[in-house]
């Protein structure tokens, strides 16, 4: 074992600090550099839509299953979308088996918030026959390997998968109440907005790290996630506890976030096109 590794084990804090003093991180990145991101869509054929996303070592997969359901009594002409994030022990020893832990809950709720507040899709379009039949999209995000920055990865995979979704033609017969499902999956889901999230780890008053690894998250105190729409409007911001931040830092985050928007969305575009060509 090299002296470096020993040092890391015995004095993780100092080890880490020594890097930050050179404005570097243990993985060689600067403080405001993001990790390379790769996206593949249509990875799961059984799902109506799916995508796999790698940000550095963090790997996340999202599969969208569409099912027919009866609309809720109070909203007779709306469909459903149910995001759910799963963190199994296989992706990191941090997580235990059994019911979803706090972090998984938080992530699921985060995606739900983004859906609602960005108004990305109009649920009425998911309705086939008012009060009788509607689509229910189950979006299950599974973390394959956890190395920090779950929220960003989850959101990207979710967005990619959703844009990959193709629904079959469905007709509903009034009299006979029979449901006919078309064979070929053709209809895409129309998205009104494409929110992009950017996560920062707060290490101290001055130092914040974009796109944190698991190590960064452990060393830092609390994350801030800023979600922006294409036009740079703020969609949601998620900061719970952690280091105090001033109003200026927030602005800084937003500026960094804006840079990310195009980059990520283009990435997704490209992935979608590739998949088109493949099929």
């Amino acid at each position, binding site marked *: 074992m090299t002296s470096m590794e020993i040092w890391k084990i015995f004095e993780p804090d100092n080890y880490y600090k020594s890097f930050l003093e050179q404005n570097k991180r243990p993985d060689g990145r600067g403080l405001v550099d993001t990790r390379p991101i790769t996206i593949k869509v249509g990875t799961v054929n059984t799902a109506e839509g799916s995508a796999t996303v790698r940000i550095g070592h963090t790997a996340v997969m999202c599969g969208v299953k569409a099912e027919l359901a009866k609309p809720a009594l109070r909203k007779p002409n709306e469909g459903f979308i149910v995001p759910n994030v799963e963190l199994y022990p296989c992706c990191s020893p941090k997580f235990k088996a059994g019911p979803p832990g*706090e972090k998984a809950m*938080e992530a*699921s709720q985060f995606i739900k918030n983004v859906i609602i507040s960005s108004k990305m899709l109009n649920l009425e379009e998911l309705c086939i026959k008012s009060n009788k039949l509607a689509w229910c999209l189950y979006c299950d995000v599974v973390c394959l390997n956890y190395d920090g920055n779950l929220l960003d990865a989850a959101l990207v995979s979710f967005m990619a998968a959703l844009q990959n979704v193709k629904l079959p033609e469905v007709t509903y017969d009034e009299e006979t109440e029979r449901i006919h499902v078309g064979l070929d999956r053709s209809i895409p889901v129309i998205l009104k907005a494409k929110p992009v999230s950017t996560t920062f780890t707060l290490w101290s008053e001055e130092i914040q790290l974009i796109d944190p690894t698991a190590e960064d998250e452990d060393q830092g105190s609390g994350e*801030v996630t800023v979600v922006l729409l294409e036009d740079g*409007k703020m969609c949601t911001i*998620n900061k719970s*506890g*952690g280091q105090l931040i001033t*109003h200026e830092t*927030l602005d800084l985050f937003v500026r960094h976030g804006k840079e990310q928007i195009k980059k990520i969305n283009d990435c997704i575009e490209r992935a979608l096109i590739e998949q088109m060509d493949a099929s």
Partner: protein
Amino acid sequence: MSQHLCEIGYLSRSDGSSLYCIGGTVVLASVNGPGDVKASNRHYNRTQLDVCYSPSTGQSMIGERALESVISKTIEQAIIVHLHPRTAINVTLQEMQSDGLALSTSINAACLALLDAGVQMKSTFSAVTCCIASSGAIILEPTEAEIKESSAVVTFVFDGLEYNVLSAYQDGSLDSDTFNLCLIKCQLAAKDITAIFRKTIEDKHKFDKS
């Protein structure tokens, strides 16, 4: 800013308790500890903090669990956790009556209950919610109805010293200028809330001869 009412020393069995009302939202908070803790979540160097939030109707769903985690992370920052190792502090929040401001009311109630229990803290903290009406106007501490109408809802938690942001929680989209405007408005409101805390504590100590 809608009317704030609060009262402490509410429950005889709890170490600290408070009832906090903002407008129509009423939350009852109870704090116990620092007390003993199960070996499973005992930490050698710090206090274990358990927060339990239950909504006014029925059992808590995933949404409430998310609120819970926001609240607990906020409190964990404010209290000095390393003073009483191998102990636990329980914070239990019960929403008695809901009118849209569950989060901010709960956080303020929790802070007041912690003060009542005399738990050692770095500073007080206070939460303010505001929403952007469809007209674009910023409404501080809106009602449920107003929130339904609004395009975005933001909740900030500030510390009691420099009023820096301790937590922020946003639903709905708005551009960053409006966001900053909200931040500033809420900061002012937060100062008033801290004043309310002070007033309440002074009232509690009114019998100490000075």
